Structure formats: structure tokens, C-alpha cells
């Protein structure tokens, strides 16, 4: 659906997007992550044809984003950051206007209007002026606008930005439902959202792609993925010595607890499991063991690991 080949964007001296390349297959829901100013919005603006790339190329549905911009724009539904809308229009009037701009008319437009307002939960505010709507409703109007012409690809720039938890939840479940039928590229920096809605993640930082994979693979490949927490009744330094000697163990830290036990954190190579070895060790040394657990890394840790500056 989307093929991006070393796309770059330069604003004067500042290189906002630096030769990024990735692909999005039809039917995928892709989360586009990155810290503020990483180049997410710029990339999306280039894909939608609002800004030209400085270098590189991208194709959406087989059409070149620069040369065949009009064709590309017919096939995408785009919700820009902060959802700009004509605030003096009424909800239904606005959606009808946007649908007509995309070449819809007559009964087709009427039925789609009803459908998108139903999907986005706007039916009861359809006669209200957009300027009287709350941020959450405006966000939904933006989403309905992006959906009305049944686009092959939805590009959403921070769809849940600035919403309260209930609104985030409703927008998120809406995106999940949409993901069953549409290809979606959504940018965000809310990681729980990505874990719940996306089947692929692209992380960019300082204009470069840092990772592109499924959320579970990203988590698995994390350096911290093999962290095991152990609580045993043994002296801290003695325990550390023996644990360090185990296979695949990279580092051990310990922390004496008040009740005479010691908690160890055992860092291992990725994709290894040392829990059995630790259990055998405690059994062999007759150290009482009361807790042995592998901590799963979260997407948040992956994100921090990939994008932190220190």
C-alpha cells in the first residue's frame, strides 16, 4: 500500500526527515512512533502531498506521491494534526462538503453520510456548529471526514492527542474496528495505544527509522528483555558470584531486603531463558527461593531505549 524509498525533507538547514524507508502492506495497522520533533508529521505531510519531499520517493497504492498527487489524494483519508475544520459549518454540512469534494454525490453521498456519522458517533450532534463542539467531537468529525469516501488508506496524525481517557478509549476502539477493513498509518506518542491497536510499529527519531517490526518482536529483541528477578535467602555477594557464573548471564545486581532475603536482578542475553538454571542453582546450593520471574519489556522501554539521547 505504501512504499517509501529514502524519503528526505529539509527545512532550510534543518534536516527533518533523513532518508527514511519502510513499507506498509495492505490491511496493516501501522503505528508511527517517535518523540516530539522526530519528523512524524512531516513524513505524513509528504505522503499526503501537502509538502514535497526534498529527496527520495514514495508510492501509495502504486501512485507516485509527487507526480500523481491527485490520484494519491483520491485514495487516502487524511486527518491532520490538531484536526483543522471549518468551525462555522455544521457537522453534517461539513461532511457533505468534504464528501462532495471527493466526487461523491446523490444517494451514495447521503447513505455514506449516515454511515460515517453513525460510525464516529456524531449522529446526535449533526446539526451543531463545529465551533460549539468539544475537542473529542471535533476529533471524531475529522475521523468521519477521513472516512467518508471509503479510502483504501487512512493516515491519522495523532488521532488521540489532547483527549481525556474516555475519549481516547472510544477513538481507539473506533480505530480498532476500522483496522478490520482499512489500511491505517497512525502517528502517536502514546505507546499503550500502539500496543493495543497496531500490528506493526515504525519508530523514528531525528528523522531516521530506528526500528520497524511487530510490537511483540520489538519487545523480544530488546536488550532488557532477558531481565529476571530472583528473591533468595543468601548473602548478596555470594549470590552474585554464582549467578554471574551461569550461562548467558551478562550482569547481576542485588538489593538486600529488610527481612533478610536478597533480591537479584539478572540480565541475560536476548532470547534466552535462564530461569531453569537459577532454580537448579538454588536447589543445589540449598538457598531458599521464594520468587523467580522474568520481567517482560514493554514497548515503552523499547521506545526509550531507541530514542533516548544520553
Amino acid at each position, binding site marked *: 500500500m505504501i512504499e517509501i524509498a529514502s524519503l528526505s525533507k529539509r527545512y532550510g538547514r534543518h534536516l527533518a526527515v533523513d532518508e527514511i524507508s519502510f513499507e506498509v502492506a495492505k490491511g496493516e495497522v501501522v503505528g508511527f512512533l517517535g518523540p516530539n520533533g522526530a519528523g512524524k508529521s512531516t513524513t505524513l505531510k509528504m505522503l*499526503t502531498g501537502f509538502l*514535497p519531499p526534498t529527496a527520495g520517493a514514495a508510492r501509495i497504492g502504486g501512485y507516485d506521491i509527487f507526480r500523481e498527487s491527485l490520484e494519491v*489524494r*483520491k485514495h487516502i483519508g487524511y486527518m491532520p494534526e490538531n484536526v*483543522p475544520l471549518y*468551525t*462555522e459549518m455544521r457537522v453534517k454540512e461539513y461532511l457533505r462538503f468534504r464528501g462532495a*469534494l*471527493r466526487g461523491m454525490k446523490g444517494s451514495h453521498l447521503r447513505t455514506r453520510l449516515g454511515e460515517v456519522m453513525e460510525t464516529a458517533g456524531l449522529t446526535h450532534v449533526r446539526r451543531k456548529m463545529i465551533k460549539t463542539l468539544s475537542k473529542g467531537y471535533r476529533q471524531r468529525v475529522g475521523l468521519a471526514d477521513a472516512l467518508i469516501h471509503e479510502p483504501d488508506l487512512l493516515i491519522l496524525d495523532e488521532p488521540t492527542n489532547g483527549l481525556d481517557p474516555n475519549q481516547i478509549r472510544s477513538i481507539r476502539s473506533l480505530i480498532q474496528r476500522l483496522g478490520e477493513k482499512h489500511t491505517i498509518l497512525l502517528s502517536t506518542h502514546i505507546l499503550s495505544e500502539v500496543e493495543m491497536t497496531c500490528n506493526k510499529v515504525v519508530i523514528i527519531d531525528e528523522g531516521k527509522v530506528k526500528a520497524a517490526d511487530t510490537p511483540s518482536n520489538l519487545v523480544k529483541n530488546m536488550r532488557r528483555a532477558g531481565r529476571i528477578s530472583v528473591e533468595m535467602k543468601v548473602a548478596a555477594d555470594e549470590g552474585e558470584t554464582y549467578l554471574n557464573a551461569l550461562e548467558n548471564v551478562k550482569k547481576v545486581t542485588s538489593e538486600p531486603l529488610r527481612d533478610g532475603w536478597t533480591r537479584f536482578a539478572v540480565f541475560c542475553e536476548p532470547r534466552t531463558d535462564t530461569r531453569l538454571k537459577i532454580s537448579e542453582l538454588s536447589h543445589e546450593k540449598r538457598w531458599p527461593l521464594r520468587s523467580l520471574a522474568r520481567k517482560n519489556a514493554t514497548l515503552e522501554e523499547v521506545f526509550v531505549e531507541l530514542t533516548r539521547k544520553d
Partner: protein
Amino acid sequence: MRVFRILFMKELKSYFFSPFGWLIMAFAALMQGLSLSTTMKGFMDVAQSESLVYVVFQAPTFWFYFLFLFPVLTMRLFSEENRSGTLEGLLTAPVQTWQVVLSKYSAAYLTFAILWIPVLFHFKLFTMITNVPPPFTNGEIYGSLLIILLMGALFTAMGCLASCLTSSQIIAGIVCIGFLFIHFLLGLVTLWWGDQIPAAPFFHFISSREHLDLFSRGLLDSRPIIYYLTMTGFVLILTHHVLDFRRWKP
């Protein structure tokens, strides 16, 4: 064409489905009525050799309100979309830039044209409610309105260009009035420097004041007609390029 019509209707609605368009209309009708009534008073006091229409459009108040109509009509067109970000939504829909430019221009121009209906009505009213023979002919009325519509075509285009250059309505309005004043003052250069300077024919050629002078006597000259039409096209092309530049700048 359909996209153009949709955009055009939307722009036209934004003038007339809000108090905005009606306020401008009221202002224009008021100023037009004032110039007519003061001129009529003048006619009562002193005998005049010129026609009523000619004197109405020669009054200095005419240029004062005429030139101020354009920034008010056009300053919002592009700058507001730019500021609120709706331009992004508009230009990422399958819409061509020329359709956006032409639809906004046409809506502003049509609104401008509607502002001159009262003038036509005023002069008709004059013949209807007075029993003196009308001190003007139809040629003078239609000539004046024709040149006003021609000047309006160019000045509205200049307003669109100004609005396109900035995301602030106020600045757009100031830039627009700047364009119009410079254009108007260039037409007055020969009044101060005389006709001896080599560029005098050029200043006569672009002088809106002289064009109005000519047309409000009922005289048609093809040169101003060509001038305003080509300049309108040129300024609109420039507006299109300014708006589209975003898509080309590396």
C-alpha cells in the same frame, strides 16, 4: 468543474450566511447613497455642466470607500485557511490548486459585483421619484459600472494575492490596501510631475482615475478593458503560483 462549483458555493455561503457580507453591503450602499445625495445637493446650489453620474464618481469619497472594499472582501480568503490549518485539509483532498484560487476569487468578485446593484437602483429611483429630466444618460451609468467591474476584477485579484502571502488577516488587509494605493497613486503621478516626463504615457495608461473619468462620461476605451483583464489574469496566475510554491519548494 463540479469541484469548482462546490468550492465556489462554499465561499459564497461564507459571505452571505454570516453577517459579514451583509455588513459590507450595508456599508457600500450607505456610502453610495451618501455620495449621490451630497452630489444632488451640490446640483441644487450651483449649476453644473457635467452629468450627475460623472460628478458622483468624481467625488473624492468614491476612491476612499471603493479601495477599502477590497481588503475587507478578500483578506480572509487564504490567510484564514492558512492560520487555522484548514488549507492542509483542503489541499490534501483531490482538488487542484487552480480550482481553489478561482473559486475563492470568483466568490469574492461576485460579492463585489453585487455591491453595485444599489447604484443602478439609485439612479433608476432618481428618474422615478423626481419630475425633472434626468441629468444623466444610461450610457454614463453603464459605462461607470463597467469600469468599476473591470477595476474590481483586478483589485480583487490583488487582494487574493495579498491574502495568499500571509497567515494573518490584518497583514493581508494592509498589504492589499498597500497594493491598491500604490496602483492608484501611480495613476496620479502625471498630476504632480506633468506630462513632460518620458514615462507619462505609461502613467496615463494605468491611471484608474482617468479610466473612471473616461467611462463615467459614457466613453468606451478598449485599452483599459484589455489592461484590467490581462492584469487580472496575471495576478491570479501569480496567486496560483504562490499557493502552489509550497508543493515545489525543495
